[in-house]
């Protein structure tokens, strides 16, 4: 029954090996890429640098003046290179936490917990994918384009933004050989009807046997509808407020539609990448 006796001082049977680490990372660069976004490059060797596309980190943001972030802030891996030991995040300076993050100077350290969560997958049958994102969602998707490239999967990136200044990481996508299509609010090309036409065209051209999206509820719903109609495999990277990032606190739940049933899942643990077919509006 209960086993208090043997429960005390026995040493661990297997030596412990971690899958994620709370790394004290050193800032190499922390620069503005446009008026709202900064790119931070960290020296974070070990497990951190093994992060895969779609995985994220939970970042301890510094206390600065009246900004006293208590929780860590989740951020997608913008780049991780196991060889150089470098990890990068592209982030929008929004509230207390990201304002604090933005103050970090070269040489300072920051604790990053990760890699966390389930990243993107490229099933065998998928040979040519469409990656569609908006805003900071593009940061999450850039490593996917590189992963696809390494696996010989063709990529078309449909990048949505308010105006030309808000289109992030075109170069990252182009460097992988991805075909890039930019749609903007400023010239009306980002409207749903036009985007739908683009997606249907790509599908007709045989360039869309996978849909991947992040950063916009509207675009996600569009892709989900088309994926359903056209029988395309799809994945979406989700956001939700987080505390632990490790599946422990259950604060980051969202509802998913699993075979017609509404199921609550933890974005940090079951995701942040989910089957597009299961996603519901947020």
């Amino acid at each position, binding site marked *: *029954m*209960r*086993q*208090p*006796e*043997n*429960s*005390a*001082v*026995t*040493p*661990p*049977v297997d030596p*412990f090996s*971690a*899958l*994620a*680490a*709370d790394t004290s990372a050193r800032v190499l660069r922390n620069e503005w890429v446009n008026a709202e976004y900064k790119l931070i490059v960290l020296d974070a060797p070990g497990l951190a640098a093994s992060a895969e596309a779609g995985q994220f980190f939970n970042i*301890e943001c510094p206390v600065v003046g009246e900004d*006293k*972030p*208590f*929780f*860590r802030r989740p951020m997608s891996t913008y780049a991780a290179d196991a060889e150089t030991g470098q990890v990068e995040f592209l982030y929008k300076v929004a509230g*207390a936490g990201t304002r604090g993050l933005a103050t970090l100077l070269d040489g300072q350290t920051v*604790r990053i*917990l990760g890699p966390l969560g389930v990243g993107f997958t490229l099933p065998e049958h998928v040979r040519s994918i469409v990656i569609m994102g908006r805003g900071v969602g593009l940061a999450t998707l850039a490593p996917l384009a590189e992963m696809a490239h390494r696996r010989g999967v063709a990529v078309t990136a449909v990048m949505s933004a308010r105006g030309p200044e808000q289109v992030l990481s075109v170069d990252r996508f182009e460097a992988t050989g991805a075909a890039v299509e930019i749609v903007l609010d400023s010239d009306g090309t980002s409207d749903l009807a036009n985007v739908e036409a683009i997606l249907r065209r790509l599908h007709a051209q045989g360039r869309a046997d996978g849909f991947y999206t992040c950063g916009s509820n509207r675009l996600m719903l569009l892709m989900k509808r088309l994926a359903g109609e056209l029988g395309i495999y799809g994945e979406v990277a989700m956001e*939700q*407020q987080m*505390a*632990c990032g*490790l*599946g*422990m*606190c*259950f*604060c980051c*739940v*969202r509802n998913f539609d699993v075979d017609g049933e509404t199921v*609550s899942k933890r974005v940090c*643990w079951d995701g942040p990448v989910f089957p597009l077919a299961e996603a519901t509006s947020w």
Partner: protein
Amino acid sequence: MVDLSVDLGRGLILANPVMPASGTFAEGLARVIDLNGIGALVTKTITEELRGGNLTPRVAEVSNGMLNSIGIPSKGITYFLEHTLPFYRQFTAPLIVSISAPTVDAFARAAARLNVPGIAGIEANISCPNIEEDGKAFAMRPGTTEQAVSAMREVTDLPLWAKLTPNTGDIAAVARAAEKAGADAVVVANTILAMSIDIETMRPTLGNVMGGLSGPAFKPIALRMTYQCARAVNIPVIGCGGIATANDAVEYLLAGAAAVQVGTATFTRPNAMNEVIAGLTEYCRRKGFNRVTDLQAALNAEMLIPDVMEAAQ
């Protein structure tokens, strides 16, 4: 060598007095730290039946702490025994399962189902609403506490802890009721009911309007309650509330706690429990304590005056 082991009664001896607080720990932590270093493992509260939990947002930041209104999403005891328990069986640290129920009988039914290998003890989260008493939490009153604990005591020989709520006027009386009803220890305390409002949206920050405060801001209150309970009962008191460092844990042990639980701190520093354990050893060594249990009697009490509820005013 400092002896960190603690005896929590009914044969349950922990290698050290540090464990997670229910609801702030799950399988995920094993990805980051070695769970075998921890004194015990305590699960998120489970219920017999399936439950969904509360509306989002479920957490909010406040000054040096957090609010949560997670609720108790639960896949039920059957799921737990089949899918979760096997995971914890790989660790040497004893497993304490936290349970909750809406009625006295349901508490007993839940407790009875945990007499299975791999479960070292039960923590009864009686800080939850009692639907037979207007939704007031069992642990708000001595009477309902005694009923719930007695009912569980009758059906289990496992170590049985009662987790108390700070949302009561006289926690020492509640602790005495738990002791009388046969609890092997009391855990002091669950979160204290609190609220915050986003003044831009003019909405409560939590979907549930109110939620529980935890973290450093809560520590002085939970420490006071631990002290009051430790003086009121002869069973071990497990201190919980805002412990983030070894120094915090030392305060609780000096206040009379036999062991401590680390909650919110693990969210911001996943290695917090290990740091507390290491720091406790170091403190004992520096202060010349051979056993961590010696701290329990070390509070310098020469000027202690009688315990007045309203010392503050």
